[in-house]
Protein backbone atom coordinates (compact mmCIF):
# COMPACT_ATOMS: atom_id res chain seq x y z
CA UNK A 1 0.00 0.00 0.00
CA UNK A 2 2.83 2.40 0.86
CA UNK A 3 4.17 3.81 -2.41
CA UNK A 4 7.76 3.14 -3.33
CA UNK A 5 9.50 6.47 -2.75
CA UNK A 6 12.81 5.16 -4.06
CA UNK A 7 15.89 7.07 -2.91
CA UNK A 8 13.74 9.95 -1.61
CA UNK A 9 11.96 7.93 1.09
CA UNK A 10 13.58 9.87 3.93
CA UNK A 11 12.90 13.33 2.45
CA UNK A 12 9.26 12.71 1.54
CA UNK A 13 8.46 10.89 4.79
CA UNK A 14 10.18 13.62 6.82
CA UNK A 15 8.17 16.35 5.05
CA UNK A 16 4.86 14.58 5.76
CA UNK A 17 5.65 13.64 9.36
CA UNK A 18 6.92 17.11 10.31
CA UNK A 19 4.08 18.98 8.55
CA UNK A 20 1.26 16.83 9.89
CA UNK A 21 2.93 16.85 13.31
CA UNK A 22 3.06 20.66 13.36
CA UNK A 23 -0.59 20.97 12.30
CA UNK A 24 -1.56 18.37 14.91
CA UNK A 25 0.33 20.16 17.69
CA UNK A 26 -1.24 23.50 16.66
CA UNK A 27 -4.77 22.04 16.64
CA UNK A 28 -4.16 20.37 20.02
CA UNK A 29 -2.86 23.66 21.46
CA UNK A 30 -5.96 25.55 20.22
CA UNK A 31 -8.28 22.88 21.62
CA UNK A 32 -6.45 22.76 24.98
CA UNK A 33 -6.38 26.56 25.43
CA UNK A 34 -10.00 26.85 24.29
CA UNK A 35 -11.10 24.29 26.85
CA UNK A 36 -9.07 25.89 29.64
CA UNK A 37 -10.36 29.44 28.96
CA UNK A 38 -13.95 28.21 28.64
CA UNK A 39 -13.69 26.44 32.01
CA UNK A 40 -12.09 29.46 33.73
CA UNK A 41 -14.75 31.83 32.36
CA UNK A 42 -17.52 29.49 33.49
CA UNK A 43 -16.01 29.45 37.01
CA UNK A 44 -15.82 33.24 37.15
CA UNK A 45 -19.38 33.67 35.85
CA UNK A 46 -20.69 31.08 38.33
CA UNK A 47 -18.87 32.91 41.15
CA UNK A 48 -20.40 36.21 40.07
CA UNK A 49 -23.85 34.63 39.97
CA UNK A 50 -23.46 33.34 43.53
CA UNK A 51 -22.13 36.67 44.79
CA UNK A 52 -25.00 38.51 43.10
Amino acid at each position, binding site marked *: *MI*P*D*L*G*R*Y*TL*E*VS*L*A*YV*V*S*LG*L*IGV*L*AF*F*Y*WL*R*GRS*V*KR*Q*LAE*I*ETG*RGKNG
Partner: protein
Amino acid sequence: MASFWEYANPLKFMRVTDWLLPIVAVAAVVVTATGLIWGFFFTPDDFRQGATVKIVFLHVPAAMMAINVWVMMLVASLIWLIRRHHVSALAAKAAAPIGLTMTLIGLITGAVWGQPMWGTWWAWDPRLTSFLILFLFYLGYIALWAAIDDPDTGADLTAVLCLVGSVFAVLSRYAALFWNQGLHQGASLSVQPGTRMDWAYKAPLYTCMLGFGLVFLALLLAGTRTEIRARRMKALVARERMA
Protein backbone atom coordinates in the same frame (compact mmCIF):
# COMPACT_ATOMS: atom_id res chain seq x y z
CA MET B 1 -30.17 39.77 4.62
CA ALA B 2 -27.91 40.17 7.64
CA SER B 3 -25.13 42.74 7.34
CA PHE B 4 -21.52 41.50 7.50
CA TRP B 5 -20.93 43.92 10.38
CA GLU B 6 -23.45 42.10 12.58
CA TYR B 7 -20.80 39.40 13.05
CA ALA B 8 -18.60 42.02 14.69
CA ASN B 9 -20.89 41.61 17.67
CA PRO B 10 -19.17 38.99 19.89
CA LEU B 11 -22.49 37.46 20.97
CA LYS B 12 -23.66 37.04 17.40
CA PHE B 13 -20.23 35.67 16.41
CA MET B 14 -20.31 33.10 19.24
CA ARG B 15 -23.85 32.05 18.35
CA VAL B 16 -23.11 31.54 14.64
CA THR B 17 -19.73 29.82 15.14
CA ASP B 18 -21.23 27.51 17.74
CA TRP B 19 -22.88 25.46 14.96
CA LEU B 20 -20.54 26.49 12.12
CA LEU B 21 -17.27 25.40 13.76
CA PRO B 22 -17.99 21.63 13.96
CA ILE B 23 -19.08 21.61 10.29
CA VAL B 24 -15.93 23.46 9.15
CA ALA B 25 -13.71 21.26 11.36
CA VAL B 26 -15.11 18.02 9.92
CA ALA B 27 -14.86 19.40 6.36
CA ALA B 28 -11.25 20.47 7.04
CA VAL B 29 -10.23 16.98 8.20
CA VAL B 30 -12.06 15.20 5.36
CA VAL B 31 -10.83 17.47 2.53
CA THR B 32 -7.22 17.67 3.80
CA ALA B 33 -7.02 13.91 4.36
CA THR B 34 -8.50 13.28 0.90
CA GLY B 35 -6.02 15.62 -0.78
CA LEU B 36 -2.98 14.29 1.06
CA ILE B 37 -3.90 10.61 0.63
CA TRP B 38 -4.60 11.25 -3.06
CA GLY B 39 -1.31 13.10 -3.48
CA PHE B 40 0.83 10.69 -1.47
CA PHE B 41 -0.57 7.34 -2.59
CA PHE B 42 -2.12 7.89 -6.01
CA THR B 43 0.13 10.26 -7.96
CA PRO B 44 3.00 9.06 -10.13
CA ASP B 45 6.61 10.09 -9.60
CA ASP B 46 7.79 13.06 -11.67
CA PHE B 47 10.28 12.20 -14.42
CA ARG B 48 12.82 14.69 -13.01
CA GLN B 49 11.91 15.14 -9.34
CA GLY B 50 11.06 11.51 -8.64
CA ALA B 51 9.01 10.96 -5.47
CA THR B 52 9.94 14.39 -4.07
CA VAL B 53 7.12 15.82 -6.19
CA LYS B 54 4.79 14.54 -3.44
CA ILE B 55 6.15 17.27 -1.15
CA VAL B 56 4.35 19.84 -3.34
CA PHE B 57 1.02 18.80 -1.76
CA LEU B 58 2.26 20.16 1.56
CA HIS B 59 4.60 22.91 0.44
CA VAL B 60 2.36 24.87 -1.94
CA PRO B 61 -0.80 24.93 0.26
CA ALA B 62 1.27 25.85 3.34
CA ALA B 63 3.14 28.62 1.52
CA MET B 64 -0.11 29.91 0.05
CA MET B 65 -1.72 29.98 3.49
CA ALA B 66 1.34 31.63 5.07
CA ILE B 67 0.81 34.64 2.81
CA ASN B 68 -3.01 34.58 2.81
CA VAL B 69 -3.18 34.44 6.60
CA TRP B 70 -1.10 37.61 6.79
CA VAL B 71 -3.40 39.27 4.23
CA MET B 72 -6.40 38.23 6.35
CA MET B 73 -4.66 39.68 9.44
CA LEU B 74 -4.06 42.89 7.48
CA VAL B 75 -7.76 43.20 6.58
CA ALA B 76 -8.79 42.44 10.18
CA SER B 77 -6.24 44.97 11.49
CA LEU B 78 -7.55 47.66 9.13
CA ILE B 79 -11.12 46.94 10.29
CA TRP B 80 -9.91 47.32 13.88
CA LEU B 81 -8.07 50.58 13.16
CA ILE B 82 -10.96 52.10 11.20
CA ARG B 83 -14.10 50.69 12.85
CA ARG B 84 -12.80 49.50 16.26
CA HIS B 85 -14.54 46.12 16.12
CA HIS B 86 -12.99 43.94 18.81
CA VAL B 87 -13.79 40.67 17.06
CA SER B 88 -11.62 41.66 14.09
CA ALA B 89 -8.62 42.44 16.32
CA LEU B 90 -9.09 39.15 18.19
CA ALA B 91 -9.44 37.24 14.90
CA ALA B 92 -6.10 38.69 13.74
CA LYS B 93 -4.54 37.62 17.05
CA ALA B 94 -5.99 34.10 16.71
CA ALA B 95 -4.76 33.82 13.10
CA ALA B 96 -1.10 34.59 13.83
CA PRO B 97 -0.01 31.18 15.28
CA ILE B 98 -1.69 29.46 12.32
CA GLY B 99 0.21 31.69 9.89
CA LEU B 100 3.44 31.06 11.80
CA THR B 101 2.93 27.30 11.58
CA MET B 102 2.11 27.47 7.86
CA THR B 103 5.24 29.56 7.21
CA LEU B 104 7.34 27.07 9.18
CA ILE B 105 5.86 24.16 7.19
CA GLY B 106 6.60 26.05 3.96
CA LEU B 107 10.21 26.65 5.02
CA ILE B 108 10.82 23.08 6.26
CA THR B 109 9.21 21.30 3.30
CA GLY B 110 11.01 23.67 0.94
CA ALA B 111 14.35 22.85 2.57
CA VAL B 112 13.65 19.10 2.55
CA TRP B 113 12.72 19.28 -1.15
CA GLY B 114 15.59 21.67 -1.98
CA GLN B 115 18.34 19.46 -0.56
CA PRO B 116 18.01 16.65 -3.15
CA MET B 117 16.80 18.92 -6.00
CA TRP B 118 19.01 22.02 -5.61
CA GLY B 119 21.80 20.36 -3.63
CA THR B 120 21.30 22.70 -0.67
CA TRP B 121 18.92 23.04 2.27
CA TRP B 122 18.92 26.81 2.06
CA ALA B 123 19.89 29.61 -0.31
CA TRP B 124 19.58 33.37 0.18
CA ASP B 125 17.13 33.44 -2.68
CA PRO B 126 14.63 36.37 -2.78
CA ARG B 127 11.57 34.21 -2.16
CA LEU B 128 13.20 32.10 0.56
CA THR B 129 14.62 35.17 2.29
CA SER B 130 11.35 37.12 2.16
CA PHE B 131 9.60 34.03 3.56
CA LEU B 132 12.09 33.85 6.42
CA ILE B 133 11.44 37.53 7.16
CA LEU B 134 7.69 36.85 7.08
CA PHE B 135 8.28 34.07 9.64
CA LEU B 136 10.14 36.56 11.87
CA PHE B 137 7.28 39.05 11.48
CA TYR B 138 4.83 36.40 12.66
CA LEU B 139 7.04 35.76 15.69
CA GLY B 140 7.28 39.49 16.39
CA TYR B 141 3.51 39.93 16.01
CA ILE B 142 2.78 37.13 18.51
CA ALA B 143 5.45 38.42 20.91
CA LEU B 144 4.01 41.96 20.75
CA TRP B 145 0.50 40.73 21.63
CA ALA B 146 1.98 38.79 24.55
CA ALA B 147 4.02 41.75 25.78
CA ILE B 148 1.18 44.28 26.11
CA ASP B 149 -1.34 43.95 28.90
CA ASP B 150 -3.99 46.39 27.68
CA PRO B 151 -5.92 44.64 24.87
CA ASP B 152 -6.79 47.83 22.96
CA THR B 153 -3.20 49.11 23.00
CA GLY B 154 -2.04 45.63 21.97
CA ALA B 155 -4.52 45.62 19.09
CA ASP B 156 -3.38 49.09 17.95
CA LEU B 157 0.34 48.31 18.00
CA THR B 158 0.03 44.86 16.43
CA ALA B 159 -2.19 46.34 13.69
CA VAL B 160 0.58 48.80 12.83
CA LEU B 161 3.14 45.96 12.83
CA CYS B 162 0.83 44.01 10.55
CA LEU B 163 0.71 46.92 8.09
CA VAL B 164 4.52 47.05 7.99
CA GLY B 165 4.84 43.26 7.64
CA SER B 166 2.45 43.28 4.70
CA VAL B 167 5.31 44.51 2.53
CA PHE B 168 7.06 41.18 3.14
CA ALA B 169 3.88 39.17 2.60
CA VAL B 170 3.55 40.80 -0.83
CA LEU B 171 7.29 40.34 -1.47
CA SER B 172 7.02 36.64 -0.57
CA ARG B 173 4.22 36.26 -3.09
CA TYR B 174 5.88 38.10 -5.95
CA ALA B 175 9.61 37.74 -5.18
CA ALA B 176 10.07 35.01 -7.77
CA LEU B 177 8.60 37.37 -10.40
CA PHE B 178 10.42 40.56 -9.28
CA TRP B 179 13.88 38.99 -9.27
CA ASN B 180 14.93 36.23 -11.60
CA GLN B 181 18.32 35.47 -10.10
CA GLY B 182 17.00 33.18 -7.32
CA LEU B 183 16.91 29.39 -7.17
CA HIS B 184 13.18 29.25 -6.52
CA GLN B 185 11.11 28.57 -9.63
CA GLY B 186 8.10 30.66 -10.63
CA ALA B 187 4.53 29.97 -9.57
CA SER B 188 3.56 26.26 -9.67
CA LEU B 189 0.00 27.23 -10.55
CA SER B 190 -1.04 30.09 -12.75
CA VAL B 191 -4.13 31.38 -14.51
CA GLN B 192 -1.92 32.17 -17.50
CA PRO B 193 -2.20 29.77 -20.45
CA GLY B 194 0.58 27.21 -20.79
CA THR B 195 0.74 26.33 -17.08
CA ARG B 196 3.17 23.47 -16.64
CA MET B 197 1.61 21.20 -14.06
CA ASP B 198 -0.29 18.12 -15.20
CA TRP B 199 -3.81 17.48 -13.88
CA ALA B 200 -2.58 14.27 -12.26
CA TYR B 201 -0.86 16.58 -9.75
CA LYS B 202 -3.06 19.63 -10.06
CA ALA B 203 -6.29 17.95 -8.92
CA PRO B 204 -4.92 16.63 -5.57
CA LEU B 205 -3.02 19.91 -5.13
CA TYR B 206 -6.22 21.96 -5.44
CA THR B 207 -7.87 19.57 -2.96
CA CYS B 208 -5.00 20.10 -0.49
CA MET B 209 -5.19 23.87 -0.96
CA LEU B 210 -8.90 23.79 -0.17
CA GLY B 211 -8.20 21.51 2.80
CA PHE B 212 -5.52 23.81 4.22
CA GLY B 213 -7.89 26.75 3.76
CA LEU B 214 -10.55 24.90 5.74
CA VAL B 215 -8.01 23.92 8.43
CA PHE B 216 -7.16 27.60 8.76
CA LEU B 217 -10.84 28.59 8.94
CA ALA B 218 -11.61 25.96 11.59
CA LEU B 219 -8.63 26.95 13.75
CA LEU B 220 -9.40 30.65 13.22
CA LEU B 221 -13.00 30.25 14.40
CA ALA B 222 -11.89 28.16 17.40
CA GLY B 223 -9.10 30.59 18.26
CA THR B 224 -11.29 33.68 17.93
CA ARG B 225 -13.93 32.12 20.20
CA THR B 226 -11.20 31.48 22.78
CA GLU B 227 -9.88 35.05 22.48
CA ILE B 228 -13.41 36.48 22.93
CA ARG B 229 -13.86 34.38 26.07
CA ALA B 230 -10.38 35.33 27.36
CA ARG B 231 -11.16 39.01 26.83
CA ARG B 232 -14.48 38.72 28.65
CA MET B 233 -12.73 36.90 31.48
CA LYS B 234 -10.14 39.66 31.75
CA ALA B 235 -12.88 42.32 31.79
CA LEU B 236 -14.82 40.49 34.53
CA VAL B 237 -11.72 40.07 36.69
CA ALA B 238 -10.81 43.75 36.24
CA ARG B 239 -14.39 44.80 37.13
CA GLU B 240 -14.34 42.68 40.28
CA ARG B 241 -11.01 44.20 41.33
CA MET B 242 -12.45 47.70 40.86
CA ALA B 243 -15.55 46.89 42.93
